[in-house]
């Protein structure tokens, strides 16, 4: 009887993809009725405190590649969504800011003094970057924007960015091809600007090189980037696999999950891949991640692992880091 039950329960989830976002710039169906979680989140939870784990390289990169993350959220979503971001990946940013239309001293969240809503996203983005520029420019090398339903693996972002110079005008994300010649980066999958790119972006609004031309945040930003000569970078890993993802792993890994008529197949700048080739081992981000999936990803990335397993993909350490590390680990072969 219990077996029957578990089989019944097991077979249920797979038949229909539950959320297919029909518009690349669609925001999220406002979920209602999510359980209001009480109590404080433990913000010191897990910074790789495992006994047999060596995190020297990750820590080294943390110092070398400073990333400020700002998370696009709103008053209604602080408890529903942003809270779980804060409990998981946000702690791994060198600095994290939660950007809302209004200030919340307790969370804490920065008030951008905009309204809420889909059409405000570009305003919020412009103001958020201005705020970051005015208050934290010297505190980081790279400036990442994410949504409150984006899951980011900071170590992998640092590995990606370690090869680049933050004084160069460049930005990275999941590159889309339409509308902008050099492409533009998907908003939901998150994108990251170099210090120079941030300076130029903020400056562009002061000098009217860029304006609030549309409410489609990622596209408008991408157009601006092209105008101010900030390069749209290639964020794929060393074997060509994408690192920023506009959907959750399941949507990318399962062949046929995203129907052929779906906008995604025509938007991707590089040839899109479904199945195991979709995603780098060193993925940087996933989008449309609900709270449960945030914690699941946290468990899969930072906790559960196959003991003793020699991963197929063994990318090299960045040159500069390698030199420092080889001094410490002369005999051992660091398996990354």
């Amino acid at each position, binding site marked *: 009887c219990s*077996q029957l039950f*578990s*089989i019944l*329960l*097991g*077979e*249920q*989830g*797979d038949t229909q993809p539950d959320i297919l976002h029909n518009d690349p710039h669609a925001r999220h169906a406002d979920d209602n009725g999510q*359980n209001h*979680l*009480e*109590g404080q*989140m433990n913000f010191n*939870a*897990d910074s790789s405190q*495992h006994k*047999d*784990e*060596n*995190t*020297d*390289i*990750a*820590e*080294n*990169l943390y110092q070398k590649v400073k990333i400020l993350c700002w998370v696009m959220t709103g008053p209604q979503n602080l408890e529903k969504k942003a809270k779980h971001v804060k409990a998981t990946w946000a702690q791994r940013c060198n600095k994290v800011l939660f950007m809302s239309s209004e200030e919340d001293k307790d969370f804490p969240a920065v008030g951008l003094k905009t309204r809420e809503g889909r059409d405000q996203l570009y305003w919020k983005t412009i103001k958020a970057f201005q705020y970051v520029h005015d208050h934290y420019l010297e505190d980081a090398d790279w400036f990442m924007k994410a949504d409150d339903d984006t899951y980011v693996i900071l170590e*992998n972002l*640092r*590995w990606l960015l370690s090869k680049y110079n933050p004084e160069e005008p460049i930005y990275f994300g999941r590159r889309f091809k339409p509308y902008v010649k050099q492409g533009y980066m998907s908003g939901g999958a998150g994108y990251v600007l170099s210090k120079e790119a941030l300076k130029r972006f903020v400056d562009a609004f002061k000098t009217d090189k860029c304006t609030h031309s549309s409410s489609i945040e990622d596209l408008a930003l991408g157009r601006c980037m092209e105008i101010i000569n900030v390069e749209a970078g290639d964020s794929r890993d060393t074997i060509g696999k994408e690192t920023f993802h506009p959907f959750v792993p399941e949507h990318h*890994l*399962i062949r046929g*999950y995203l129907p052929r008529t779906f906008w995604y197949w025509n938007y991707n700048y590089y040839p899109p891949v479904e*199945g*195991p080739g979709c*995603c780098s*081992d*060193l*993925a940087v981000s996933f989008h449309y991640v609900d709270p*449960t999936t945030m*914690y*699941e990803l*946290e*468990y*899969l*990335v*930072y906790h*559960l*692992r*196959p*003991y*003793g*397993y*020699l*991963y*197929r993909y063994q990318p090299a350490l960045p040159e500069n880091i390698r030199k420092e590390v080889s001094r410490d680990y002369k005999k*051992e072969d*660091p*398996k*990354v």
Partner: protein
Amino acid sequence: MLSESSSFLKGMMLGSIFCALITMLGHIRIGHGDRRHQHKHHHLQAPNKEDILKISQDERMELSKSFRVYCIILVKPKDVSLWAAVRETWTKHCDKAEFFSSENVKVFESINMETDDMWLMMRKAYKYAFDKYRDQYNWFFLARPTMFAIMENLKYFLLKKDPSQPFYLGHTIKSGDLEYVSVEGGIVLSIESMKRLNSLLGIPEKCPEQGGMIWKISEDKQLAVCLKYAGVFAENAEDSEGKDVFNTKSVGLFIKEAMSNHPNLVVEGCCSDMAVTFNGLTPNQMHVMMYGVYRLRAFGHIFHDALVFLPPNGSDND
């Protein structure tokens, strides 16, 4: 009128006597008498760091190869989509994996058990595996197709366990006097346990094909009863923090429960870092687990492990 009611009463009496008898029969427990326990502990733990440091570099490869796990997956035709997912994912990491089906299925290779009774399937599968592979494998893992298992973590768990001892491990449940390994979490038997089990399979008094007089007893309980006769006792497998490593639920379910029970420590309170099994997965979730376990990771976190496992040949999702 009186004679009718008296025969009615007689009928009622007889009926209720029979009812009581039958109920009593159904409750007869098979007595075991006194059995000396082979193991002191009922909760087995994974080795800890100090033990690992004593193993030298050269010994690691040798040691890793010394674990030979044979995977038995019991399937039925209706499980076909799960079966496909299991074939394409974690079973590639078994030293050998075979599917034992209730009946022949055209799509996939399997060993036909010619019965859809789970206990009979289990018995036949264990007998088949033992007869054919007793010399080639030292550990036998039985699973259902709703499960995801991590063989590397199983081998790590077995690191200090001698297969010539009668081990019978997994997620245990106590039912009255009987402690048994739940099939929902996966069942691990050492070669010694297999030997003892197989010696009893032919003895109906000890290991009946139809256990339980009236109600059917689940196959995992039947197995436990049978093994108990052979002096093999169930042990719950836990990590060094006391967390179960064989799980009867999926990661998602654990997370959901943790979010409502202890929202401050969702991930920490969830599951073992060295988990061996999860259950209740859909085929899609198997593929996600495959990526999440064998590929997705954070750069710069290095582990110095006592064992070394290479990725299997001809596989592209790990």
